């Protein structure tokens, strides 16, 4: 798979630690919602570092977009967050991954469960669903630390008008008037949001490893078919 050169045309702030890079990549061949790219950085002496990032844009969007969370102890994300600016070039290749993807043909009901920046591939999926005029019943259950940490907050409200059902849970802090969930995703939240196992929802779970393990285990325990649950994990194990 060939490396390609993209140019940063816009940097969109999302939260204090997250921003999106809108890229112009003339050689891009298109992608499916849910896929990712590899990004490669090169230092003047030839030293290189590669990492994977989920694609945030839908296949229909005119520009490729990545959303990057700054990890303080990271090697690549601090560069992408602190240094990379409009006009810079970025080397990437993709699209990568053929399993954690959704197209209208996959059907539903569609349940997307995100922890933190695990929401990124789901932006591609819900935008793809909207762009295709598809009406698959779709719920996004999104766990964030606080309202200020919710990525794509305004856009998700907008997408609610396309029939996307967004349920937020805030795990560390919430406004006084908050009526949503106020804890980490657990069996009770999943029982309330995940449809019943007899409706056989197609479930995608994306987030930090411990988050994905807990959510996927709880779904199986509730009786959901493990073969209908697709997972994508990032970060350390924490164990």
């Amino acid at each position, binding site marked *: 798979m060939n490396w390609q050169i993209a140019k940063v045309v816009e940097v969109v702030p999302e939260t204090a630690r997250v921003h999106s890079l809108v890229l112009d990549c003339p050689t891009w061949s298109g992608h499916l919602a849910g896929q990712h790219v590899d990004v490669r950085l090169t230092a003047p002496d030839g030293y290189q570092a*590669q990492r994977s990032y989920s694609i945030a844009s839908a296949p229909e969007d005119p520009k490729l977009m990545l959303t990057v969370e700054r990890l303080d102890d990271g090697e690549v994300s601090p560069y992408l967050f602190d*240094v*990379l600016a409009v006009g810079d070039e970025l080397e990437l290749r993709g699209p*990568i991954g053929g399993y954690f993807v959704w197209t209208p043909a996959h059907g539903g009901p569609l349940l997307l469960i995100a922890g933190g920046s695990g929401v990124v591939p789901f932006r591609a999926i819900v935008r793809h669903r909207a762009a295709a005029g598809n009406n698959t019943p779709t719920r996004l259950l999104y766990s964030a630390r606080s309202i200020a940490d919710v990525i794509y907050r305004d856009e998700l409200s907008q997408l609610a008008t396309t029939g996307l059902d967004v349920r937020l849970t805030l795990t560390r802090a919430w406004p006084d008037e908050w009526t949503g969930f106020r804890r980490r995703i657990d069996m009770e939240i999943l029982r309330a949001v995940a449809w019943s196992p007899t409706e056989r929802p197609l479930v995608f779970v994306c987030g930090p490893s411990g988050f994905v*393990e807990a959510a*996927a285990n709880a779904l199986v325990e509730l009786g959901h078919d493990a073969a209908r649950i697709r997972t994508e994990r990032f970060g350390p*194990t924490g164990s």
Partner: protein
Amino acid sequence: MSPISRGFVGRRQNTDASRLPPGQYVTTDFPVLSAGPTPHTALDAWTFTIRGAVEQTKSWSWSELTSLAAENIKTDIHCVTKWSKFDTQWSGVSLDVLLAEARVDPQAKFLTAWSDGGYTTNLPLEAVTGGKAWIAFSFDGKPLHPEHGGPARLLVPRLYFWKSAKWVRGIELLQHDEPGFWEVNGYHNYGDPWKEQRYQGD
């Protein structure tokens, strides 16, 4: 020729570069990657089976497998998601021992490993014979944790780690190559980290 990334210095690791395949970085953590939920099969229901192009299908129960002569393996491992981990310590039974008991048909040139949860991966037979592969059931002196593939996983450290199928339950010997789960989802059919064979076409 890659363009220089303006302002990128990188965080050079104080590691033995000769042990690190291209595009990888060293981690001391042990990240988890999986396509679906972690299976939890009870040990009394667990078996390991060798079938297909063999003289006789052969199955081992958990107690039978773990009472075979185990080897301790100290090895570097390399994940296609870019992390490498040095000097990991495993114990398990060499696939040479198990294949000898099943008596492989000389026509067999490939195998597919299959796992609880439906995962599969394909390998040429020569990639797993001659002290290159194990059914591993212990990591760092402790039973292999379910998130890392326990109770037992295939261990083929010379290839990217998706070939080391977690939750392995058996292998099927074949005369032809049959691409597995990731191999039909865009990843390389062989997966040699030293040739950076990550994706189809690499």
